[in-house]
């Protein structure tokens, strides 16, 4: 590393000679190396480990993990949860941002605070809220049991907890975007006789489409990866209420490291894909507000 710095320093001195430059260039490269070392040990090494351990015993073992029916059920449950949660949260995000960005009304800041709340709360508390409502000793526990409905330790609980944790993402992306873009074009469309839905689909939606995609991919990444909240409401029943992150925990606790990291590698690829789409959107000119 020191050799690399020396070469870099010499290279810069050749182009920009001067008394202070030696120290400035040394400082620059020291700071860059410190930054990279910090990131390498905290982020890059763990990322590389995921794949190193997943492929430790070769391709065969890696693929075997996904032949296992429990793993398949976990993947199916995660996809199902995301397929329910993401569209609902997208609908909510569109409705909430239209209501908050386009109109002035009392209690607006209360809405905004409630939308921010899940981001400030521990995932464990998010899950617990639904246990307190629908769990056996919760508010509706007795009534639900009398009617043979299970929410906690079943699919509805997982969906509710995931929805709670991920609903702010679309709304928080769209509200500032719509506020900044203003209402002029919508007002013009309505005044000239366009219907409400036509105005929404032909005027508003095209304006905010990148922000919408941005919010949806973040919402999806969190929905598929949520651990704490889902862990509290799921009950960890194999093949039934086990999502991918929970399945990772089970395999890991059984010392099946190759299996745990194989499932983890799928979720890591999802995170990488999310970041790539995010970068592409930013390159296409979308700016977060």
């Amino acid at each position, binding site marked *: 590393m020191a050799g690399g710095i020396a070469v870099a320093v010499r290279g810069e001195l050749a182009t920009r000679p001067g008394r202070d430059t030696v120290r400035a260039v040394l400082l620059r490269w020291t700071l860059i190396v410190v930054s990279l070392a910090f*990131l390498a040990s905290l982020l890059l090494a*763990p990322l590389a480990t995921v794949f190193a351990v997943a492929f430790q015993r070769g391709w065969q073992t890696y693929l075997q993990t996904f032949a296992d029916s429990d793993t398949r059920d976990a993947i199916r449950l995660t996809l199902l949860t995301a397929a329910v949660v993401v569209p609902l949260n997208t609908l909510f995000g569109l409705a909430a941002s239209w*209501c908050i960005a386009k*109109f002035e009304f009392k209690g607006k800041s209360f809405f905004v605070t409630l939308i921010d709340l899940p981001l400030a709360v521990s995932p464990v508390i998010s899950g617990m*809220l639904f246990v307190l409502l629908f769990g056996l000793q919760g508010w509706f526990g007795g009534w639900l049991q009398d009617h043979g409905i299970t929410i906690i330790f079943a699919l509805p609980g997982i969906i509710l907890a995931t929805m709670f944790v991920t609903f702010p993402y679309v709304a928080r992306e769209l509200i500032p975007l719509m506020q900044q873009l203003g209402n002029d074009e919508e007002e013009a469309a309505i005044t000239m006789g366009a219907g409400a839905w036509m105005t929404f689909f032909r005027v508003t939606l095209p304006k905010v489409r990148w922000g919408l995609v941005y919010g949806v991919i973040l919402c999806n990444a969190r929905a598929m990866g949520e651990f*704490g909240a889902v862990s509290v409401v799921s009950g960890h029943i194999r093949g039934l209420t086990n999502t991918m992150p929970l399945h990772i925990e089970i395999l890991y606790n059984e010392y099946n490291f190759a299996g745990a990291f194989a499932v983890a590698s799928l979720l890591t690829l999802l995170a990488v894909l999310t*970041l790539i789409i995010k970068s592409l959107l930013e390159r296409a000119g979308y700016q977060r507000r």
Partner: protein
Amino acid sequence: MTSRKRFHQPSVLPGFGLTFGFTTFFLSALVLLPLAALVTMAGSMHWGDFVHVVTSARALGSYRLSFGASALAAGINLVFGFILAWSLVRYEFPARKLIDALIDMPFALPTAVSGIALTSVFAQNGWIGRYLALAGIQVAYTWIGVTVALTLIGMPFMVRTLQPALIEVQRDLEDAAETLGAGRAYVLRRIILPTVLPAMLTGFTLAFARAVGEYGSVIFIAGNLPMKTEITPLLIVIHLQEFDYRGAAALGAVMLVMSFIVLLTINLIHAWGHRRMVASAR
């Protein structure tokens, strides 16, 4: 319709009733109702029981670890996050754009994945853990491991808050100061740090707030020994698993109050930073 007209200003745009109704229903069902359940559950306890649960030795031990390690991790991010943000904003180096995109990784990566990955890197036979073990430092299954995980989780908050603030720093002020004979340390202390101070405080608070509630990435590396390496969220989970809903709700209420205080702090910092900016513009 007439009653609604009173609290919302008239507009030619359609859809207020529909979107307001849907948003209200969604937020009531998903947020307000569950919060009410938490508050009444915690509130239905006798005051003595509540105090007993939230001040038990085990709970106090978990606060000490959760809040202590979170503050330490946010402090580490204050230093390294600043260096990282500074390098990304001010310097050009190979793969800078890629590194910049990677900063968001802890946001996108599921916490269970970062949890098991950090544990295997910092375990005694891990890539980094084995060298630290030679120096007699055990990271995994100790409070140090908890701090490492919380540092990773908080890192993007600090860097992403600092980057725009560092871009705002006026380069000509720095150049002027150096022309007049100021050293780098003096410029850092008198020009750069005062400008980015509100951003540093905001980043610290955000990283701290996220770390206090973190669960997934911590429980694998923590060891989870009561009083020693047990974080507060895990203690809540344990109460729930024992069907002690009231105890869990009481601890949850304590953490919620802490979250509100943190949110309030962030707003105060914003207001203070804004006032400072306005004052300095005069």
